[in-house]
């Protein structure tokens, strides 16, 4: 079954449509709130990891500071709503735009850095953001923001009685992030990014505007991540600096893509579907008393998969694509 690139892309789209349709039906059969909660988180991390993958996977600029954009999205939405009564939908858009602008402003100096210098710069910048929010009294400082509950409606994007609306929004978000990636893969940008990732000097000499490519990837990636952060703020209705901008979020966004297959279309989805339920289940079944068993399981899995399957778990599903990757 030798397929062309165009046929493969069409097939990917059909598979994604079927998966989304099946996923949309799952809550009709699964009524357990705990399980629904895990499904929401899984979809959210699939979306976040897909966004992270655009900058770090396709364009090769490994960011371990995406918690900054996640937190900016969450804070913009929460602050606009609690201080000015602005609906979360505008906060979501505003947070996305602010994050994209900040990503480009930061990218301007940072994209000159390479390798570990870049990675550490991303960690350090997110950490500065965290410390600033920690000390910003108007934004609640270390105590954070309690988002007041008005009434359950799509207008205020608050639902206290059912998790289903959150589920469908997270599903939509994951689909949008996937579709954006799918569309970008075959666009001019997608080709530029892969060229920049493989060899920036060669790409530059062939006429790819390396700097602009990186800026584009950063903006798209930050925008989508911030929308995820806005969603999270509404979902948990309480945020503080550590819980939305902490380093662990940067890591949690990267891991599904890394485990599933970095720089691949399906990697983040596959990684999230395996990793998030596993983390949540180990946490509640054996790690409940804060004894760290969840961390041990999680960490061991990361070590084993990154050593045994450096190309990610996606490789298991498609023998042909693995052959083509060589």
């Amino acid at each position, binding site marked *: 079954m030798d397929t062309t690139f165009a046929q493969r892309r069409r097939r990917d789209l059909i598979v994604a449509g079927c998966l989304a349709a099946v996923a949309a039906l799952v809550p009709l059969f699964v009524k357990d709130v705990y399980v629904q909660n895990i499904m929401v988180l899984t979809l959210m991390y699939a979306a976040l990891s897909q966004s992270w993958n655009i900058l770090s996977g396709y364009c090769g600029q490994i960011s371990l500071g995406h918690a900054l954009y996640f937190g900016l999205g969450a804070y913009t939405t929460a602050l606009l709503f609690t201080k000015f009564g602005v609906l979360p939908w505008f906060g979501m858009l505003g947070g996305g735009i602010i994050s994209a602008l900040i990503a480009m402003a930061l990218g301007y100096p940072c994209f000159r850095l390479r390798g570990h210098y870049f990675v*550490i*710069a991303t960690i350090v910048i997110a950490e*500065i953001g965290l*410390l600033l929010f920690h*000390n910003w009294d108007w934004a609640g400082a270390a105590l954070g923001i309690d988002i007041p509950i008005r009434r359950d409606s799509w207008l205020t994007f608050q639902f206290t009685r059912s998790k289903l609306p959150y589920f469908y929004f997270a599903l939509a978000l994951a689909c949008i992030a996937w579709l954006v990636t799918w569309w970008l893969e075959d666009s001019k940008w997608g080709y530029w990014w892969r060229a920049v990732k493989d060899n920036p000097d060669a790409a530059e000499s062939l006429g790819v505007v390396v700097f602009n490519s990186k800026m584009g990837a950063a903006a798209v990636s930050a925008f989508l991540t911030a929308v995820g952060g806005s969603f999270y703020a509404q979902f948990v209705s309480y945020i503080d600096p550590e819980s939305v901008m902490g380093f662990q979020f940067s890591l949690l966004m990267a891991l599904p893509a890394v485990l599933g297959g970095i720089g691949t279309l399906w990697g983040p989805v596959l990684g999230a579907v395996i990793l998030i339920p596993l983390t949540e289940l180990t946490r509640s079944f054996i790690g409940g008393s804060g*004894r*760290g068993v969840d961390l041990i399981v999680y*960490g061991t899995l990361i070590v084993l998969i*990154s050593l045994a399957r450096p190309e990610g778990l996606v490789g298991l599903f498609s023998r042909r694509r693995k052959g083509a990757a060589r």
Partner: protein
Amino acid sequence: MPLTAETIIQSLASGLLMGLLYGLIAVGLALIFGLMDVVNFAHGEFLMIAMYATFFLFAFFAIDPLLSAPLVAAALFVFGAVVYLLIVRFAVRAKANAGMVQIFSTFGLAIVMRGLAQFFFTPDYRSVTHSWLGGKTVSIAGVFLPVPQLVGALVAIAAFGALYFFINRTDFGRALEATREDAGAVALVGIDKNRVFALGWGLGAALVGLSGAIMAMFFYIYPDVGASFALIAYVTVALGGFGSVFGAFAGGIIVGLVEATTALILPPSLKSVGIYAVYLLVVFVRPRGLFGSM
């Protein structure tokens, strides 16, 4: 605290001492990076287990951190070599996504180590309560210096001196230098690359072990203690230029002084902002750090 000449000298002096310790914490990282281009993202957790080892030697056998420091360093040497042989050796062989595999295999190890520490030692804060030096201060020309930090700084200077001698004057040091220059060529002259790497990891970890024993004299010990020091260590190493052992020494001093200066101007909770800002400023101007080669 009013800004007088005395307070400024006082905080610069303690910043200098802390800076020398930061250099000692970071130098193992720089050594390993210089040797094989790998950043150990479990570096902070190496420091954490060294601190716990010091604590337990004190709590169960009443061995003072000053005496247990060589024991802890030796234990960490073995641990570092084992980590290389069991994990890193395979990570550097990865055919796909090599950079990513290195980052995440050591990150995974860090998470496992934190989990194990929580499991076996509980998340409680521990401290070495009454060590010989703990809590003591000396006054030198009117500047008060905490004795543990002062001794730590002297140990750091001695360790850097020994390391300098070791790298430049011993066979193993030459093998280390040769391997970092060209790992392929050393294999041709009969040096076992894996052995050099394992010893390099051991040496790097032993230096962290030494710093951990000193840190345990004046710092709380808990499973996440490594995280904040690790970030400082990365910044220190990057400031000095990745892989430059003596860049780490200079980087440590800069970081210590910047931290102390920031704490004079900004609220204490923001003292790390100064370090991070200086890192960004330096790499924006010199993308290879202060002492890194282009």
